[in-house]
């Protein structure tokens, strides 16, 4: 049991660090996916431990959200790339005050 949670924790940390340090929008995006899946793993593990289906249901919800997010996120990245010829998140800083 502890192994699953440890793996989930490691995956989440990798994802979080990736979001914070990487500049390429695609990689940042993948790291977000990694974090989502890390939580999914935690949900499923806890569901298994507690012997009910609540966690598994939540995992499905997360997958749906992740799918929607991928669709919108990739669309945004593509359109930014089209206008700016770059996928670096640091170059898209027009909201700077």
């Amino acid at each position, binding site marked *: 049991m502890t192994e699953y949670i440890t793996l989930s924790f490691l995956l989440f940390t990798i994802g979080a660090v990736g979001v*914070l340090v990487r500049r390429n929008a695609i990689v*940042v995006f993948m790291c977000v996916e990694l974090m989502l899946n890390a939580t999914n793993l935690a949900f499923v593990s806890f569901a298994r431990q507690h012997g009910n289906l609540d966690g598994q249901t939540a995992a499905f919800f997360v997958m749906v959200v992740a799918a929607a997010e991928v669709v919108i996120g990739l669309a945004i990245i593509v359109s930014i790339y089209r206008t700016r010829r770059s996928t670096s998140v640091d170059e898209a*800083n*027009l*909201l*700077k*005050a």
Partner: protein
Amino acid sequence: MLELSWLLIAIPLAGAALLLVWGKGADRFGHLIATAASAAAFVLGLIMFVELIGRGADDRSVTTSLGTWFEAGRFHVEFAFTFDQLSSLFVLLITGVGTLIHVYSIGYMAHDARRRRFFAYLNLFVAAMLTLVLAADYLVLFLGWEGVGLASFLLIGFWQHKETAAAAANKAFIMNRVGDLGMVIALMTMFATFGTTSIAAVNGAIDSASGSTATALGLLLLVGACGKSAQVPLQAWLLDAMEGPTPVSALIHAATMVTAGVYLVVRSAGIYDASEIARTVVVIVGLVTLLVGAWIGCAKDDIKKVLAGSTMSQIGYMMLAAGLGPAGYAFAIFHLLTHGFFKANMFLGAGSVMHAMDDDVDMRHYGALRRAMPITFVTFGLGYLAIIGFPGMSGFFSKDKIIEAALGYNTWIGLAAMIGAGVTAFYMTRLMMMTFFGEKRWRDEVHPHESPSVMTIPLIVLAAASVLGGALYLGGWITDWLEPIAGHAEHPHLPVPVIVVQLGVMAVVALGVAAGVWLYRRDVPDRAAADADVSIVTRAGRHEIYTNEVNGALVVLPVRYLTRLLVWLDARGIDGTVTGTADRIGEASQQLRRTQTGYVRSYALGIFGGALLVVLGLLAVTLA
């Protein structure tokens, strides 16, 4: 007819409204409408006066109410007018002299582009002054009181393009506010004490109030009277008020408005009879003003300012008489009426002289005008004889009576009043000598000429009134006439026979005249030479005994610093707090906006940090 007293006010008021509303279209004939309105009021006043004479002695006070002015709780003000012995005399003086001055102004203001407006203001003044004297309630009186103040302000500053005129108008208005404050407090005191401001009710109920209330009311009304009548210590505005057109000086600042204070004291006889202290203060104010005005009159070179000083001085006589109580009320009014004639006459004469001298007012530029302007000279001369109290002239009777009454009250006050008569004779002689006699000192471009008849006819009528005004005292008529209002006048107990007093006054007057003739028999030095070598007394007189400086140091300067302090407090304190808060918030926002970097990763860090804090918080709560 006596119920028509409101119409007396309505006619000139309608005239003023008509001229102001009609606008430029009435420029060509506006002055005629105004003069007709004033004359109509005079004729109506005369008819009413004749009817009043026809009535029985105890039936001569007719009060007409136009309805309730306003009502609040137990406070009830009736918009009522009283036509009685006192107000009828004033109505005749105001409309009579007023009409003559309207006629005179037709000539005097002929070349002024704003003549219609001038006549509208004159009519407004007549209406306000009539409201003042006809009012049956102190609050209605106050309405007229403020109305004449407004008209005075508008007319002093009529030539508003002159900075001095605008400043003089403001000065008169502001100094009058001080007096009006006294009036307002008096009105409040009346309401608090008696629950009414009706003149008859207040004066009738004064015995039911404490002596100190009567004294307070008397002193507060005196403050108002001092402001309006240019009495010490609120006298400084009158000399500056001479900036206005000369007919205005004659009507408002000599014959009528400035005597409103005397009217107020006499009308409030009940209050003053109840307070010895208030009456004494009135006597002192009158005496001081009498001497100060005469002093200033001796030193000024500006013909209108000499007359203004003289007006102050003569009103001082009236105040003095009014302060003597029943012994003097009737004589105060008597002198007020005769003064109204001869002083209006002389002011208009001075206007005629100025007209001839291209608006030069400096008597040092006059001289030998008697040949150039014979009618002005003769009418002015008759006014002169009247004011110095030449036997048989109106001023002789009225001033003599006041001096006798003052002597009966207190020997020293009587003697001071007597000296005042001598000084009056001196400064008026000085004026006559400098203006009409001696060598001509005109500047080359000036060609004096007699004024047109539209100006000289009022002069002739007023000169006749100045001579014959004493007839009001024939057989003691005026004292008998005013007795129901002023109370019975005992004959003063004099230390010496009356004839001695009269001879004494005449001797003092003769001395003054002789001094004036002797000192100004030769040529008058020019202004520069005259300024170089004068005694401290003359210097003080020329500077109006430094009252402007005293007022400036005691009132104007502190108030100016106070306003500066207030402005500073407002700008730095109140505004400073408000704008300062806004500025600080703005600065803080400037700092805060730097956190908005626009970098997605820094926002993400923020989110993580926040989430971490939330989780840690939850853990802490759960574990604790």
